């Protein structure tokens, strides 16, 4: 019997030993993987602000957008015009992110967590950011899934597309609700450290929400009016309420720390190949406008041609300083080149075949032609050329733009200068009665100068050799091409200045603004002049919707003209 017990004990001990040996592991997993282990909305708020702003601002390196706004041509993406706008992406694209699975999911988390915590100001901030995304997507694609979106957890795997009108109404609701929460002095949330946009300043969030609402009403004003709804009262309320972005300090733009690639400005050259910095070349049309006005921003944003073909007889190099940055310019004698190397064949904006001769010793010389930008003027094989991602015969970006961070280099969602131009436009069109057009307009120009660090003062004879760019603001606004004269052409001038102010800061809005206003008119000519395609009015829907949400996709396409084409006009553009 003793033996029996001995064996029984032995066997039991063994089984128990094996059974209990993983207890430690279980505890370890409990602490690292428990559901809702961390439920503070503030951490998600930082993520949301960073993810929304960083993605929105990424339009600065988006080649199709840079071209659609006629700011840049791209060296690398040759043959751009057709394929840029007709090729469907795999997924919804919020400047490289699928906003539905990324940003909107984070925003929904803030909504849920902050509501539980009663930090309603965080909910308001999340709703404002949600409006940014909703507006971006609907202005890019037209009808999109919005009210039913991101509800997979609740079982809705096939969201319906909302009409653009319904989406806009929804966006206004989100913003109104956010403003009312933030206006309540007892609303909690927005911890200064985690609110990396406005340091917890609720008034700045309110200004942001009002400005954004103003932007969206301006986008949709005509469409709503056609649908029987006049929103001018809303515009007037904002304009006279003075709670909108009016100084550079109000700008909704995220600063970069520049401490690592992930936290650095988009076009920096500190990490990576630097190709994004060199491959975008300003268009001739942009440079022509800036040269004509001797625009101070040109000296901040662009560098002179680094390898001009020259009338000089030998290869010479000189250093010049602009805005505190020194550039080494190498002049290549034109005798090194065939006559055919010195001209680029292309088309003018009316589609006529032309050859554009190189301007010898060019300093500010934009790209004429969207095709094969890297090969213009003596190919890549001849001295001075810099290969696939660069063409040093054409003006490039300044060294400021190559920095990893700085006061002028931000991920912009919306800035005060845009708001000023919106007010000018609204006032000019008689949609609001507060203020004067001239005041708004000139303020917009000045705000843009300020945000680029241009100083008001005595303008030097030349900016070559300068440590800072100084402009006489009042003199600039008095220039013939700038000053308003009370005619209908004032709207064109407002549009042109707005276009110049949104270079690098908000190229998404510049593209939308052109589609809405058709101004500046020359922008729209570039696409048809080089292809059989019309100017792209929208992006085609992602393949993901066409294959995985077919019925709703087809209904959305049917309600927008029957074909999923870039030329289809969305509701606000009809």
């Amino acid at each position: 019997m003793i033996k029996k017990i001995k064996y029984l004990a032995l066997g039991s001990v063994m089984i128990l030993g094996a059974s209990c040996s993983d207890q430690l592991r279980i505890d370890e997993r409990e602490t690292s993987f428990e559901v809702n282990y961390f439920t503070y909305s503030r951490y998600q708020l930082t993520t949301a602000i960073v993810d929304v702003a960083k993605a929105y601002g990424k339009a600065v390196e988006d080649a199709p957008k840079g071209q659609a706004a006629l700011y840049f041509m791209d060296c690398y993406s040759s043959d751009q015009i057709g394929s840029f706008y007709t090729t469907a992406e795999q997924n919804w694209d919020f400047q490289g992110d699928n906003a539905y699975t990324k940003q909107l999911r984070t925003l929904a988390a803030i909504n849920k967590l902050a509501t539980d915590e009663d930090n309603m100001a965080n909910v308001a901030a999340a709703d404002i950011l949600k409006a940014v995304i909703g507006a971006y997507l609907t202005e890019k694609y037209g009808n999109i899934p919005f009210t039913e979106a991101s509800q997979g957890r609740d079982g809705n795997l096939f969201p319906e597309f909302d009409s653009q009108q319904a989406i806009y109404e929804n966006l206004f609701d989100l913003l109104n609700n956010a403003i009312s929460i933030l206006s309540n002095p007892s609303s909690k949330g927005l911890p200064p450290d985690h609110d990396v946009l406005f340091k917890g300043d609720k008034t700045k969030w309110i200004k942001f929400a009002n400005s954004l609402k103003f932007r969206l009403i301006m986008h949709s004003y005509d469409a709503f009016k056609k649908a029987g709804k006049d929103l001018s009262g809303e515009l007037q309320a904002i304009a006279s309420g003075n709670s909108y972005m009016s100084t550079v300090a109000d700008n909704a733009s995220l600063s970069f720390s520049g401490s690592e690639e992930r936290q650095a400005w988009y076009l920096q050259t500190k990490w990576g190949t630097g190709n994004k910095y060199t491959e975008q070349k300003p268009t001739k049309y942009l440079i022509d406008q800036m040269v004509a006005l001797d625009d101070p921003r040109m000296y901040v944003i662009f560098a002179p041609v680094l390898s001009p073909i020259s009338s000089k007889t030998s290869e010479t190099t000189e250093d010049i300083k602009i805005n505190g940055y020194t550039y080494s310019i190498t002049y290549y004698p034109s005798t090194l080149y065939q006559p055919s190397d010195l001209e680029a064949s292309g088309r003018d904006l009316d589609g006529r075949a032309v050859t554009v001769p190189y301007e010898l010793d060019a300093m500010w010389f934009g790209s004429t032609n969207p095709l094969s930008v890297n090969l213009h003027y003596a190919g890549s094989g001849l001295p001075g050329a810099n290969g696939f991602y660069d063409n040093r015969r054409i003006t490039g970006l300044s060294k400021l733009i190559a920095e990893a961070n700085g006061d002028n280099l931000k991920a912009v969602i919306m800035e005060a200068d845009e708001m000023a131009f919106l007010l000018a436009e609204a006032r000019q069109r008689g949609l609001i009665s507060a203020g004067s057009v001239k005041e708004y307009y000139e303020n917009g120009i000045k705000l843009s100068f300020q945000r680029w660090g241009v100083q008001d003062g005595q303008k030097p004879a030349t900016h070559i050799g300068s440590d800072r760019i100084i402009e006489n603001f009042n003199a600039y606004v008095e220039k013939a091409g700038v000053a308003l004269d009370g005619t209908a052409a004032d709207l064109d001038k407002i549009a042109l200045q707005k276009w110049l102010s949104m270079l690098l800061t908000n190229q998404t809005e510049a593209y939308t603004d052109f589609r809405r206003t058709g101004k500046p008119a020359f922008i729209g000519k570039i696409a048809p002049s080089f292809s059989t395609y019309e100017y792209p009015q929208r992006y085609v829907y992602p393949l993901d919707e066409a294959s995985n949400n077919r019925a709703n996709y087809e209904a959305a396409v049917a309600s927008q003209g029957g074909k999923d084409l870039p030329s289809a006009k969305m509701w606000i553009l009809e």
Partner: protein
Amino acid sequence: MSTNRKSICFLFSIWLLWPSGGDLLAFGSRMAPNGNIAQAERTVTGKVTAEKDGTALPGVSILVKGTTNGTSTDVNGNYSIVVAEGTSQVLTFSYIGYTSQELAIGNSSVLNVSLAESTEILSEVVVTSLGMKKERRSLGYNMSTVTADEMETAGTSNALKALESKVTGVQMNSLTSSPTSSVMFNIRGASSLAGIMKGQNGNINNETQPLIVVNGIPLSSNTVGTTSGIDAGNFMTTINPNDIESISVLKGASASALYGSSAGNGVILITTKSGAGAKKGIGVSVNSAVSFDRGFSAPPVQRTFFQGGEEGEAQTADKKGLGWHIDDKVNNNTPVWRWNIGTQEWEKSVLEARGDQNPLLAFLRTGTMNDNNVAVTGNYDKGNYRVNLGNMTHNAVVPGNKTVRNTVSFDAQYKVTNNLSVSSQASYSRTFVPNQSHVYGKREDNPLAHAMSMPINMPKMSEWRNADTWLTDWNGTYQNTPYLNNPGEGRLSRVNADGFDKAIGKNGPYFAANNIIRTYAKDNVFGRVQLDWKIGQPFLFTVRSGINHENFVFERKTPWGSERVEKGGYEQEHTNNINVRSDVLLSYNKYFLDDQLSIDALGGFSYNFGESNRSRFGGNELTTPNAFNFNALPAGVRQAAEFNRNYSGRNYGAYATATFGWQNMLYLELSGRNDWVGILPHEKDNHFYPGASLSWVASETFSMGSAVNFLKLRGSYAETGYGIGRPVNLDRYGISTDTWNGVTMGSISGDLVDANINPELNVTKEIGVDFRAFNNRVTGEFTAYSKRHINQIQNLPVVGSSGFGSVLTNMGSVKSTGIEASLTVTPVRSKDWEVNVTGNVSTFKSVIEELDSRFDEKFYSYQGSALLPLFQGSQVGDLYASDPISYIKTGKYKGMMLMGIEGIVEEAVTTTDHIRNNGYLGNMNPKAIMGFNVDTKYKNWRFNVVTSLRVGGVFISETQKIMIDDGMADIKKIYGDKYDEYWTGGRFAGGLPSMPNPDDMFTGEGFEEYREKMQNFMPLYNGDPRYFGYWNGVFIDPNYGDQSNMTQEEKLSLPDEAYIKNGEDPLMTNYLHPYHMEGQELWSGAQFRTHDATSFKIKEINITYYFNRSVVEKLRLQDVYITAFAKNVMFWAKNRMNEDPENAFYDGISGMGVAQFGLPPIRTMGLKLGFNF
């Protein structure tokens, strides 16, 4: 780690404790000091014969009644048993098909017995799930058992290989033809949709591998794994076949229902040998086998064309055989530089034929296997033990490839009291593979590809073999190969600034085999302890626990000077995993109502624990030659090293089963198991798996006359599952590793889970009949089954606007149906002769029965330019061509191929509908597998033959593609009749009689592209028409309308005038030179290289001679036998590539059904000698 050790320590400490107990061990007390058997025993001998004709009965089991002391008769019917002193003992003689007899021993020392044939039913006892012993007659499901007697495992290291064509309802695929390879084992059809969705990264059959259970301990699934492309073995390759007593296959789910969530794919039950049935006292048995392997079938290679580039130029650096005919003195007249590997000097001469007729077979050596085993057994009143030492050494047919396996196993049982017994088992197995080559694909390190694509102007294999693999004075740095570039230059001048030597065209086959090394070692420790306690009739209490620990270490060493890896590479991987399985069972066995009702019941609880860890690093570019270590790798490679310690998993199960028998003729078995899986509260889930079966022994109910000895009808139903804890449908919030300007950010994770997800189950129904007739001379069984693998759980893509990329949901079901039948006839049974002939057949069909309509039908891209279909009605294993040949649909050219300027594939229609209607290639699994076996005994001789026929199915030969691209395929031989259907001319058909001047061709407007092409191509090979041919197809007149507005499909139904028929007008014919006709074109056309997979094999022929007892006794031995065996004696396949479809894999385990080199069929012959004393 420490927890693993703790568990192992427990086991070892038990074994260590054991002998120290002194009197606990049977042999400790029973052995006299001189080793003789104690005096208190005596030996009884005798002969057992059949009452009817007096023939000797071998294998009759003899038991001293009331003890476990037993033996069995030898082939001559003789037995010898040691019994205790005393006259009251009784011997029981029992034999299948005969009535058992009991005889009192009394004082006799010789007891001869004749047994009467039984018209009674069988009382064969089989081991079923959880190690339960049941009468076979009571089973309501099909269970196949193969015993050690029926398995000739010599010449192979994997016991599963000896089961083929002996077990029905099973499809086996050896990973390679090597005798040491792993075997995939699919019971009743592959049924996993996950395998289809994994596309080219998956293997549909490997997804549904059965559970391996050793002596009641569930160990692991039979899933086959590869590391770095080589077969790294699984549990079955580590277990010594000589330790196996029997293997049973639980096919129906009701048989495996008691294993619950881990037995959805069936169970392989292994019972190992013990000392129980052994000779009384100490016994020693030794067996030793030696065998020889030889590759005997290889794809046909062309031996008539020299090396040449894609444009017909002479070449020696690359290996394409697209050059001139060996008799062509016109083109081949300029000497070319060549490196002589023997003398290591540059030479210059015109090309001449030198190589072997079949370079692959010339490259492969004769493999040898030595397998030696010594077993010591002890069998005593109070217990028994068995210790076995085994060593297997295999030198593979690929030079330099080797496997060594050493095993130690120990098994002991001890009866503590009449009511309490303890048994334990321990085994250790070490498999060491000093080198195993990666034998798939056109890879630089595949020696087979290098051998098979050896051009005729290259040296014979004997020269390669004798040449140094390294250049003199550059050992470990520069390879000696005739594929050297840059003739005449100093060696070092060819190394570029980064140290990369681009001078090597190709690896030599011996270099690839001997110098690129893949090594692994696998250690397996298995232990089991079991305690059986008869608490009191009718209860039996059992506690059982088993542990298996596996440690695996892998290394790859690629030296400097290798093709494409000029600076070598190094790789290491370590994995270890541990599984602990414990059960507590209570069983109950009692008769009621005057023994009319029997109840055999069991209930229990099991606990499983498992954990696995893995770490690896590896990459290319070593700092210095032969520096095979971590530090010699570039920083990037070192940083990418992985160290994965996985969290443990465990589950609990409670189960119960009861068999109710009525009058020994009607049996109802009910079983159920509930499993709890998951560790965390939200993961916790439980599933119930029920099973039921019914069997009726009709021959017991009705008298069926003497013709029918036994007839049983059976049916069963069961549900088994796949263990998946219910994942939670919630977002999980956490702290991100990213910060923004130092501010902590949040993160969200958590996958989307369908709220209504159901457990994935296998629902099996089967019906069957078993019978024995004509004095048991005809026995057979028939089973029809349907297995529905339902609610398959998969992550399916959902639209991004739902907020998620995919959802975990039930996607559908696969229904497998088939029959299993076998019939054994004994036409001769006499005193000297016994002949048994068995035929069996199994059929398989697995159809996608249901698919969630939300996820539409899809094709998944697969290896070999094929697609796997996922739509309702398609079969698991179906293959479709991604670029089917386009045939004209209307008009006078109807049925002709449409070609473009580049050939046929260019014009393929690749819309889903078109592929579905026109691209079907076949199924990678056979429709049916048949076995036909003959087992003959004559006096002391035994002779048996095992054959296997696989019917139906297809495979795609990428081997063919590569050989064609290399210009090495004898294309006319491979294509057969199809050749003339596809082409006119071509170099293998003697080319064309003449060709026009290229300047006169395609002169019309619109044909500019054709004309330019012809002007470029026609002068190649000096315009010699013997090298040219053209497709028998039509092309579209470029002047016929704007083709850019036509869909590919519309191009197939144009009016007749739109087409121009190739060859009709020599000036309007699209000619092709060898590379364009054979190589480039066939690169992506799966339909050109899909072959019927029907094949027939003589798997085994064995001849055994048992020495006469008189001779044996003179040698003081118990018995001696010698067996001559041959495996894979003959192989016939319907395909002209001579490839074995059973081993068709793309790379290691991936891409089943797509052959890409791999070892050719191998024949094994050998001798085995065994003796017991």
